[in-house]
């Protein structure tokens, strides 16, 4: 099976870069190769000039990776885990930075708690701390906010944004597209192992189909309207270029004997762009199944 195919991209120093794509698109595989956890069958990857295979020690010093899985070592407490990780990188006398990390991640009062005793969100914070303990210039976050509460999301993004402002390069994968839209300067979209879109976030948004008509209905949408519609429970959304399109959709709804509530017209967001890109690059296998 080919997990990644002809992927070629450059992330600039100091960028906040987003890697988006549906489950199984190859985002984690890409990070795994970048981090040296897996070897690519062909091709090469380098981090700030260090090849991840040939010059692995240098490449790994430059990388701080927050893994997707919530893993931990049950033998030790938070501070010990951070000290060990720091030591593996040969960073000595690192307690000042460790204290700062604990503080920035809201972990100060958990510093002496065993890893087993922490909640999922707290473990996630420790993962971020472990990735940053050797002050890497490149930070890789693989779905860091999956299953994480609002408070931590905000703390985390404030901290990462600060590090980015200070010059760190950030590579982020997430399924929360509003986060990507708010944070990332440039975005690559991946589908079945290929890059299907690569541009600055603002250019991607500009290229989107303008506006979106959004309303709620009680009842089923007329079959004729289904293609092109995005239905989430009672909420229906259509890409709408102009007033004519809006009128046409609403008229069709009225003719079906339905009433549209809570009507609004909004600018297309990254989620619309994402869905649009994914539909345009529908894989052959999926097309075959469709009636």
């Amino acid at each position, binding site marked *: 099976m080919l997990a990644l195919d002809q992927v070629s991209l450059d992330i600039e120093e100091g960028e906040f870069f987003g890697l988006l794509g549906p489950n199984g698109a190859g985002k984690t595989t890409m990070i*795994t190769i970048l*981090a*040296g*956890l*897996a*070897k690519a069958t062909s091709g090469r990857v380098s981090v700030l000039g260090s090849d991840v295979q040939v010059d*692995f*020690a*240098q490449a*790994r*010093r430059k*990388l701080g*990776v927050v*893994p997707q*899985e919530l*893993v*931990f*070592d*049950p*033998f*030790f407490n938070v501070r010990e885990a951070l000290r*060990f*990780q720091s*030591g*593996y*990188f*040969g960073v*000595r006398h690192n307690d000042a930075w460790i204290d700062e990390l604990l503080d920035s991640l809201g972990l100060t009062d958990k510093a002496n708690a065993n890893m087993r005793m922490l909640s999922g969100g707290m473990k996630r914070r420790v993962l971020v701390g*472990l*990735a940053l303990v050797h002050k890497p210039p490149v930070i890789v976050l693989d779905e860091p906010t999956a299953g994480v509460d609002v408070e931590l999301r905000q703390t985390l993004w404030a901290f990462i944004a600060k590090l980015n402002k200070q010059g760190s390069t950030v590579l982020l994968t997430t399924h929360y597209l509003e986060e990507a839209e708010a944070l990332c300067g440039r975005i690559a979209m991946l589908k079945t192992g290929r890059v299907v879109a690569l541009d600055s976030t603002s250019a991607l948004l500009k290229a989107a189909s303008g506006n979106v008509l959004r309303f709620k209905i009680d009842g089923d949408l007329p079959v004729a309207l289904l293609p092109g519609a995005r239905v989430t429970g009672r909420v229906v959304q259509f890409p709408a270029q102009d007033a004519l399109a809006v009128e046409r959709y609403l008229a069709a709804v009225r003719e079906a004997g339905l009433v549209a509530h809570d009507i609004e017209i909004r600018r297309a967001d990254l989620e619309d762009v994402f869905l649009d890109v994914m539909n345009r690059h529908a894989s052959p296998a999926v097309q075959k199944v469709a009636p």
Partner: protein
Amino acid sequence: MTGWQMLFYKEVMRFWRVVGQTVGGPILTAMLYLLIFGHALESHVKVYEQVSYTAFLVPGLAMMSLLQNAFANSSSSLIASKVMGNLVFLLLTPLSYLHWFVAYVGASVFRGLVVGLGVFAVSAFFAPISFVAPVWIAVFALMGATLMGALGLIAGLHSEKFEQLAAFQNFIVMPMTFLSGVFYSIHSLPPFWQTVSHFNPFFYMIDGFRYGFFGISDVSPWLSLGVVGSTMLVVSALALTLLRTGYHIRY
């Protein structure tokens, strides 16, 4: 502290945190062997003319415990990290395969020596022990522990589940240590089993180690040195190769 030293320290802390289980337990087990076998066989078995059976048992039990615990340390640490998934923290570091080897095997040797010394210290109360050739004692203890630490590394890397590691322990390590002449001299065995014993590297570890205490052994300590030394090199080379290629840890 450099990177590998920190990993060595962490590996030592890992077993030291549960010292009752990792050191106390094996010492108690060895004591039970000594009490039961010593008591039951003291007046029936005489392996060497000038050595009582209980005294004969002491070095063998110390070495057996040393070997089993050196194996247990690296293998259980690796399999636990693999199953828990926290091995990723180590995989993300710049540590090379040589660093991994030195740290994991070093911690195994350390635990093996601690347990072996503990068993010896406690059991020495039960019988008079001599130290005819202390250099041989140290050489066989260190080589045996290194060999088993490296073997544990291989077992830990190869296994994906705890059951696989348990199979390694129950079907390879336990039978080979038990059939190595800890409880008897192989000269008391029928010719066929004597021949079989000569193919068991554990036999040479125990025999050479015991030579250091009593100055007598089933085979020459130089032969034991050769067999144990070359086995250690082969096993270490295999462990290093697996680490270098990322066998079952990097894909």
